[in-house]
């Protein structure tokens, strides 16, 4: 199907895209664009995970806190993330800080909410038993609450990983001096169509790879959980 378009300018044959992929992404593009993108992604994602769980667990434990913060979080979450980009640039410029903060802001919510829901759903009997046995809070947290919430947290982590990838690309297209999104846009503007396509394919591969990776981690670390065992 692809080669039917082979002579169209906008849809170059796959072979020349692969050639471009080789020369760009396995050449200078790797260090100049791919590595900065991925390291921003990793830093932001790590912060979002840490903060998300750290805020989500207390929220899950306190219904009052959920009710106070709920509407504000709902509103931020309902705002389409790309709409926040212009304001983020006004505030923070186009550096790494802007990109990392906006990715954290966007990808924290699925993690935070799933952690809160997961903790809130722990059966009250289980918590009462923990209290009866006078299990200290840190043990309750690490042995009872977090494991019980982990299937949900993993689902949130998975949603966030894709969101974070989307936001990395968007923020680099919006304002940047390097990165995969930036490279794609520059290739487009200089009409280097095979190079542009090679970037699109790279992002596809990253998205697919991230998905596979999370599926694998989830199956490994949740192997005790019935939803995984049943498969």
């Amino acid at each position, binding site marked *: 199907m692809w080669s039917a378009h082979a002579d169209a300018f906008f849809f170059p044959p796959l072979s020349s895209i692969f050639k471009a992929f080789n020369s760009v992404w396995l050449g200078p593009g790797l260090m100049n664009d791919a590595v900065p993108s991925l390291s921003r992604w990793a830093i932001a994602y790590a912060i979002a995970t840490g903060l998300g769980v750290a805020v989500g667990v207390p929220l899950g434990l306190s219904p009052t806190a959920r009710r106070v913060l709920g*509407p504000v979080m709902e509103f931020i979450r309902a*705002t389409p993330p790309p*709409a926040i980009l212009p304001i983020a640039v006004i505030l923070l410029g186009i550096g790494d800080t802007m990109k990392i903060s906006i990715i954290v802001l966007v990808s924290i919510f699925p993690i935070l909410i799933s952690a809160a829901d997961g903790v809130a759903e722990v059966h009250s009997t289980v918590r009462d038993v923990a209290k009866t046995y006078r299990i200290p809070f840190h043990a309750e947290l690490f042995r009872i609450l977090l494991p019980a919430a982990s299937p949900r947290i993993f689902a949130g982590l998975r949603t966030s990983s*894709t969101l974070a990838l989307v936001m990395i690309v968007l923020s680099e297209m919006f304002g940047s001096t390097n990165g995969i999104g930036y490279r794609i846009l520059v290739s487009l503007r200089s009409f280097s169509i095979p190079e542009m396509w090679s970037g*699109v394919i790279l992002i596809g591969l990253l998205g*697919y790879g991230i998905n596979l990776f999370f599926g694998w981690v989830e199956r490994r670390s949740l192997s005790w959980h019935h939803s995984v065992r049943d498969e």
Partner: protein
Amino acid sequence: MTRVAPVNSARPNLRLSNIGLNVAGLAGAVLIWEFASRTNLLPSDYVPPPSFVAIEISHEILTQRWWLSTGRTLSNWLAAIVIGSAIAIPLGLVLGSSEYLYRAFRVPLEFLRAVPPVALIPVVVLVAGATPTAGIFLAVYGCIWPILVQTVYGVRAVDPMLRQVAVAYGIGRSGSLRHVIIPATTPYILTGLSISSALSLIAIIGSEIIVGIAGVGSEINVARFSGSTVTAYAYTIWTGVLGLVIALLVNSLKAYLLRWQPLKEAQL
């Protein structure tokens, strides 16, 4: 956010205090923002106090530009959702009913699904330019997958007993599709639809901001470039309102279509 309902939420005074806490949270957030901005704790050139933004919204909301851009964004969004559902639901019904097709198409579909629509922005711009078509195409691409995946799950999760009953009564393929499969799959399709409605708003506004397709997103950019930060904030907050309204609409559609269902699933 799926809230866990308190056990005795039926008691009216408890409900009232819930709303009170909700309002207190919102008011608190606005007040903190106002305070931080007025005292220059946050640089007020970049973060105007919410009262300024509110005044700006009350001016702008009377202008034609405000509603024209809102109309453009929403009509593109609606077009994308309609086209996306029209492709994804029938395709999902077919793929879900045939084990052979499901296995054959699973891997390529998984790959396509993993490509975020934003990656296709340049490609679409090349072919269609900065037109509404380009935005709609991206949004359709983004919103097909959740609906498709949910529909396939839904069809595959239909109770085999129901199918056998349909066969036993000899109501035929179209009859069983209409009276058994589609009703049983509707909750799944609607779950997909609510994910997709958010995703396609993201894609529409994203393409407006990156490419400059006319709509609320491009107005944010116009305001930013002309240096009127307050207007940029006004439009940004407006996108949040649009997001909320869309989520509410989809939820009430869901509640309406699933009113025959036992409460648990309808509440999703």
